[in-house]
């Protein structure tokens, strides 16, 4: 429901991932982790829900 909710609010679909897996599923874990990294890399740096404490010159706001 959280994933659907964030999508509803306009967060990129591939930014947030949820998976069900057991501690015995090492291979599957690797697969999911790689998959997550891949899809997030494609999106690039997050622009939403990032707290901006510094501006582009590195000065504190």
């Amino acid at each position, binding site marked *: *429901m*959280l*994933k*659907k*909710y*964030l*999508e*509803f*609010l*306009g*967060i*990129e*679909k591939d930014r947030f*991932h*949820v*998976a*069900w897996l057991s501690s015995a599923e090492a291979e599957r874990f690797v*697969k*999911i982790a790689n*998959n997550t990294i891949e899809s997030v890399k494609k999106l690039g740096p997050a622009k*939403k*829900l*990032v*707290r*901006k404490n510094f501006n582009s010159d590195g000065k504190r706001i």
Partner: protein
Amino acid sequence: MEKIDKKIREIASKLLKEGKVKLIIGFEKGTLPLKARPTFVRKPEEVEKLIWSSLCENNLAVYIPFYRKQLDNAEKIGVIAKGCDTRSLILHIQENIAKREQIVIIGVPCEGMLDRKKIEREVTPGIITESTENDDSITVKGNGFEKTLKKKDFLCEDCIICSHRKPIVYDEIVDIEIKEPEGVDVLNKVNEFESKEPEERWKAFTEEVSRCIRCYACRNACPACYCNECFVDCSRPQWLGTTVDSETDLQLFQIIRTFHLAGRCVNCGSCSRACPMDIDISLLVSKLSTDAKQYFGYETGVDIEGKPVLNKYSEDDSNEGFFEER
């Protein structure tokens, strides 16, 4: 309306006299026109101040968590409850805030509450000083004007799409005939927002919450928001900033607070009405309740034996949104 007042007072005074309850939570006339305010009656002679009108908008279930100590001391509490209030009370019972036998529910079928802001907008620039209510209309008077308005045109947004107007559970009931609305399009607002592009949605959401002044009126008006320590007040760790300087803090506050209501919100609309900045919180919580219904077939506070939807697991639960092997 007077008939309902009389009946409520009758029931209330009977319960207090017989010692069945220590306290009754209801409404009295507010000090401002178009306003009814929650009131707490402890003595039979005080029941005369109890009233009922189309302005009794607060969800009275909100007060139950404050009385946890009294409830533990076996004191019973009577609540005058509309459909949505009874749903919130059921949520409290499911979440062990109170036991069913500790709360005496005086049910009042509700035909929808009036939106004060809509009425005020209608008569602008006039200032309302007096109002009288009839069965299906309300007359407002002010500085040099008098207007009779049809109630059904000025209902609260959440009351228009309400699907449970009759109390779900009750010990005493004020017998009046009301019609459950037919063909209510609950999804309309959510679908409309959903049909926009993600970037547009984010922009609209940000614009809406950037008005937030972090007064927490929404949290205090909400019957499901009863944590002893709210996540916004935590300082170890501090989950998010407490000021309005950062847009992100405002977005996070609204996202997290509303998500805590997933599968627990009864769409009473108290949060939106309490908001002094007119933020459309209803839209956010409507999305969560429509999802609970779509993916889990669950409606909050309809089944007193049930559990909140996110507290239970079944193998047939929807896997929508979870990682899938490709």
